[in-house]
């Protein structure tokens, strides 16, 4: 009788104590969802990804992405789906095809062409510059100090 009472009390005691702190962590699904969400644009925001944005639209998209990840769709499949529904705008950068090559290659092309033109202009200037005189004069105090300063710059 007493043992049963003690056991009952012990069980009650155990049940009423606070739960042990649980360590939570991201699941693979969380991580995959984030990866995909970071590559889609929130269409109602300003240059934010669906991952960063707090808008209801972004939240729904994240939930949708999560569902698709749970169903086993790959990142490419999910992106392809949204791309087919919203067009290129939903990607975070212009897809590298067609006229968009202008914006991807353009800057480098300008840099190379500009560099070449600059090089040509510089050579032209060099060839049109007369050579420096050959006479050497003795050095005075003011010049010596100036040279010392110039050596430092």
């Amino acid at each position, binding site marked *: 009788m007493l043992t049963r009472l003690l056991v009952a009390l012990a069980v009650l005691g155990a049940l009423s104590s606070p739960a042990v702190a649980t360590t939570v962590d991201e699941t693979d699904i969380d991580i995959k969802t984030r990866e995909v969400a970071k590559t889609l644009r929130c269409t109602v925001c*300003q*240059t*934010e990804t669906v991952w960063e944005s707090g808008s209801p639209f972004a939240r729904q998209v994240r939930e949708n992405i999560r569902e698709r990840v749970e169903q086993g769709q790959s990142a490419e499949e999910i992106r392809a789906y949204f791309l087919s529904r919203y067009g*290129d705008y939903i990607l*975070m950068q212009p897809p590298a095809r067609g006229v968009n090559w202008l914006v*991807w290659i353009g*800057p480098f092309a*300008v840099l190379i062409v*500009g560099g070449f033109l600059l090089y040509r202009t510089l050579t032209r200037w060099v060839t049109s510059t007369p050579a420096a005189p050959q006479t050497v004069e003795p050095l005075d105090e003011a010049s010596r100090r100036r040279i010392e*300063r110039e050596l430092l710059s």
Partner: protein
Amino acid sequence: MIIELGHFAVVTALVLSLLGIAAPILGLWTKNADWIRVGRQSVTLIFVLLGLGIAALEYSYLTRDFSVAYVASTSNSRLPLFYTIAALWGGHEGSLLLWVFILSAFSTVAVWLHWRTQPAIMPYLIAVESSVMFGFLMLIVFLSSPFERIFPAPIEGKDLNPLLQDPAMTMHPPMLYMGYVGFSIPFAFAMAALFSGRLGEEWIKVTQRWTIFAWLCLTIGIMMGGYWAYYELGWGGYWGWDPVENASFMPWLVGTAFLHSVMVQEKRKMFKVWNLFLIIVTFSLSLIGTFLVRSGVLTSVHTFATDPERGLYILIFLAVVMGTAFGTLIARAQKLKSQIELDSIVSRESVFMFNNLFFLVAAATVFLGTLYPLMIETWKGSKVTVGPPYYNAVFMPIALGLLFMMGVGPYIAWRKASLDNIKKNFLLPLLVAFGVTALAFALGFRSPFTIAGAFVVGFVSTTIATDIGKVSAFFARRDRVNYLRGFLTAFAANQRRYAGIVTHIGVLILVIGIIASTVYQTEKVVSLRTGDEFTMGPYRLTLAEIHDVQGPNWTAKEGRFELYRGDRLLTEMRPQKRIYDASQTPTTESALYAINMGHVFLTMPEVSPDGTVTARGVINPLILWVWGGGGIMGLGVLLNMFRPRKRDE
């Protein structure tokens, strides 16, 4: 009553700006200096009047006069004093008034400061500044007046946008405007040179001082914006390549190119026309930035309310200013051409030119990226997004190229660098660069940014270090003191150069911080209840409790998290989810903890009634190097601006 007085003051300023344009022209025509004096008084009086306009508006803010429409839309009776004052530039109309007020202040200072030393430039300076003020004042008086009344007056204001209720955010626009406006002075000087057909040597010195001051303000303004975005917007980043961020970055890039190129003009008296072109582009980009923000042409976090009519006016103003400036440049370029004497391609002059090329291509890239969506929409009717992945791929390589040149320019000789000079200065740095890159690779780093960054950083830091080492040793030996004293002597002997080197060091640190905090940022998002914990890298965060907090004009749910490393409690972190009373707008306030020169960054995006919260933890390695680097850049500029003037300067 007071607001009407303010309005009247601003209208009077508008009329005076016309006088400010006409008087100097008359003065030049009749060759009578008295007319120029009239111009000077106009500019000064405009400054006083605009000050009165601002004062009247502030008075309305402080007395909570919600019958003034602008005050009602940007403030609230519970808004704290500091933000009430700053609310003046919280919306489109008021910020425009601030812009033109700062312009009038700078113009007045410039006119009075250089009156005796630059008399020939005065008429043009006055006329050009007055023209720009005229343009802005027309916009304010007729299309964007902050002085309008609203009947019936609302009992309560709408409130300042909660995102703006933050110290960094309040200082960001004034700093930025000081930068934009600061560039108008060298611009006016350039126009003076073009109109008068004369470009003397004194022009350079004055231009350089204003340019470096404007550059400082713009740099600080941009950094403040980045810092605000970092802790207020809550995604752990600080730059989104948002169109309006880009709008402030472009004049910075071209302004930096100008700052460097002008040194060649100073030293070798060359590239005068090129420098005129650069400053016109810099100031044009400042105005274009204004257009982009206020016209509704682009979506952005920052765009003010859109209005095609306003946009059209600003566009016309833009066209007139740019047309006049570039037109005069085209017409007068021949007169001001300098004699080009270049002894070798391997020279500092040459590196400065490549520096300019890279800066301009960088600016053009940002420009292209920002406008490309608009171009495609106009041309093909479809829409694309040009976001961070684009800029990371295209802009970063150009930036790294620039950084590399930063390690070459100061250490290569003027005129003609001998092979000896090249070997002495660059052989060791190149070896170190390869070594550092190999080390990075060996340590497992694979990101192209990190590898390329390692090479460039290795190179540049070695060139800087060896140069400082050499001069310190030279002076230490000469004066028989230790290296530190030697360095200080070297620094004082050529403060201008070493202040510049300090700024370069700041840039280097900034770039390292950017690479580290962008490429190696880690993030974790979890759902928690009180008592739960999660780990992030070497850290552990426990949610101790969730409680309510009350602010002056907001209420919040605050989570008290404990940050552990192993078993050691490092600190408490208290992110909040706030609701501002007046507008019922939610904001997330982040909690930051600095460790190892990086941040542990925590926000609480969601708090549900059942006691579950979503916590978002981010580790930003070396993020303090970003802000620290920016600070050192600014320090370098201050050391430059406040250097003792030598006899021959």
